[in-house]
């Protein structure tokens, strides 16, 4: 039987909800053609058969929260030509990074009757804190079309093209009236990367930042406006400190307002 000459794709899971892997399986129409173009060499949720590395493209979902996973990500990096992180857990530490502002020992006692049975790290950290990452796909969950673009681009040898606009641009394209201006709903859209298609404003609520901050967001300006509009400081901190709260720009904004008088 001739050796499989197709590029090898691997999917790895760390601390996560599995939603980003599911986004991949939600490429319903494209999934079988994708399976034709690449060898899905390692994807434990979808198949029992495993091909050993090295892998051409490794998709990594989830954040690092245990000592075992700190070691395992090193192995993944060594075995992978391109390492692509997918989703807010992998790119920003995820919602479970809320532990980073708290005492994990106390958390363990709160949830588990015998804390000594649980071995976990103080922090939930993004993959990039541990190994070099070749490309990041944001989102909670990721947009499945973006992951298709990334895989396709890597396979043909060009840089993936994902837009870096704010959610505001997407609202304008959709024709959604600004929920903050028209209805006073707090919205992180001006600071957040698009990729979701600006769903929340189209569904009558403000953006909660699940695709993470832009490269250089103006959080001071938005914060000033929100406070002026009557938002309480505690709510403002929580707005920054949610699914991508540990990403640098949101972290410093949240911390700033948490400490302010």
């Amino acid at each position, binding site marked *: 039987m001739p050796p499989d000459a197709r590029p090898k794709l691997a999917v790895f899971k*760390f601390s996560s909800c599995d939603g980003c892997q599911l986004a991949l399986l939600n490429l319903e129409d494209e999934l*079988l053609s994708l399976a034709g173009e690449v060898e899905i060499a390692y994807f434990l949720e979808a198949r029992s058969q495993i091909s050993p590395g090295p892998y051409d493209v490794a998709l990594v979902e989830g954040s690092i929260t245990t000592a075992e996973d700190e070691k395992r990500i090193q192995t993944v990096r060594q075995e992978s030509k391109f390492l692509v992180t997918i989703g807010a857990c992998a790119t920003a530490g995820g919602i479970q990074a809320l532990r980073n502002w708290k005492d994990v020992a106390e958390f363990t006692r709160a949830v588990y009757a015998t804390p000594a049975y649980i071995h976990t790290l103080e922090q939930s950290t993004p993959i990039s804190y541990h190994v070099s990452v070749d490309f990041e796909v944001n989102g909670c969950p990721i947009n499945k079309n973006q992951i298709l673009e990334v895989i396709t681009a890597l396979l043909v040898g060009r840089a993936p093209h994902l837009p870096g606009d704010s959610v505001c641009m997407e609202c304008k394209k959709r024709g959604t009236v600004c929920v903050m201006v028209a209805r006073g709903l707090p919205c992180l859209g001006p600071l957040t990367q698009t990729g979701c298609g600006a769903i929340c404003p189209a569904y009558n609520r403000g953006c*909660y930042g699940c695709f993470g901050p832009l490269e250089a967001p103006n959080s001071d300006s938005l914060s000033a406006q929100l406070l002026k509009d009557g938002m309480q400081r505690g709510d403002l901190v929580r707005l920054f400190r949610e699914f991508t709260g540990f990403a640098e720009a949101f972290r410093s904004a949240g911390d700033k307002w948490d400490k302010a008088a």
Partner: protein
Amino acid sequence: MASENANREKTVKVEYLTRVEGEGGIYVRSEGGELREVKINIFEPPRFFEAFLRGRYFQEVPDIVARICGICPVAYQMSAVHALESALGVTPPPEIRALRRLLYCGEWIESHALHIYLLNAPDFLGYESAISMATDHPKEVEQALRLKKIGNRLLAILGGRSIHPVSVCVGGFYRIPHRKELESLKADLLWALEASKGTLALVSKLPFPSFAPDYEFVSVSHPNEYAMNERRIVSSKGVDIDPEDFEHVFLEEHVERSTALHSVRADNGSSYLVGPLARINLNIDKLMPQALAAAGACGVSWPCCNPYMGIVARAVELIHACEEALAIIEAYREPAASRVEFKVHAGEGCAATEAPRGLLYHRYRINDEGLVEFARIIPPTAQNFRRMEDDLKAILPGVLDQSEAEIARVCEKLIRSYDPCISCSTHFLKLRLERG
């Protein structure tokens, strides 16, 4: 993967259980051909949702708990809003209730199609994955993907997106759909209804190992509706309680081998089973008419106590979900308001709803500012772990003399028939078998 020493202690390890959601392992030890120990090890990293929910505003809870699971976020959102509405004394009107059931139908369709075809069927048909299966059975796999897509479309229209929907809130929805939007799903759902019947015809003929333990089945129960969002909790061994009493009747234990808590009956320490088999066995007369007829005609006698036949129960529920979705859409009239207005005050409330994988219980206590003081979340898969171990203890003695690959396969097949969702259950199974 197997080791034998002079004492004929043999260990078999299945490294990772595949085609399940999340990460876990099985450890089996035998000595002199007799089973000594079976443990399901869950090493999915704990994320501590119940801890970090404290201090969050109650309206953030549906968004946050969705992230417990990518396959069943709606279940978490539904249990959360019902529990919080109980705490706040809020009762949404019938139109909102119906829309929530519709949303849940979308999730059941997507999740059951995923499990039946992509995760479980390969076991019965001798494939390592649906990807390999697609070469020989392209029509079936395409049908599966189309069914899944229809469930996802429904979730996206009603919820904003299929994974981590954005429209669910305490009191109702941020946005309710126009009638036209829901009607655009009718053609797809009619196709899906027929495809679901075909699915049942297919899976009811699969070769099932003979195995029928004396289970205690547990599910939600409602006087008029098939178990989904409300109201009481019942069992096949006499439990009939308000969700308020759930934590008195069922106990969570923390065991060393697991980052998921295990559940048992508080009074006698015995395991129990939640999920589609439990739901059908306890609520069969509430199935939609075509689903009920199909369940009666598929050659299975109900109540069914064979865990391997979970796939049949899921297929029946696929029919039900498509049928109910069509009925809700037919009757849909846009409500005047998408959500109920209410005052925020301190309170405590709990609720159980039926995730695709079984009963999902939430309890919250909030303070006068609406901030969460306490959260308890008990997922269905965690409730099933002890029962899974009991099943393995019953099955393994019959296969201990076989190869470790065969033993591993037997374990995985049983576990997979439960459709475990391990990320949920911790706040993939590795089998380690020691033979003596």
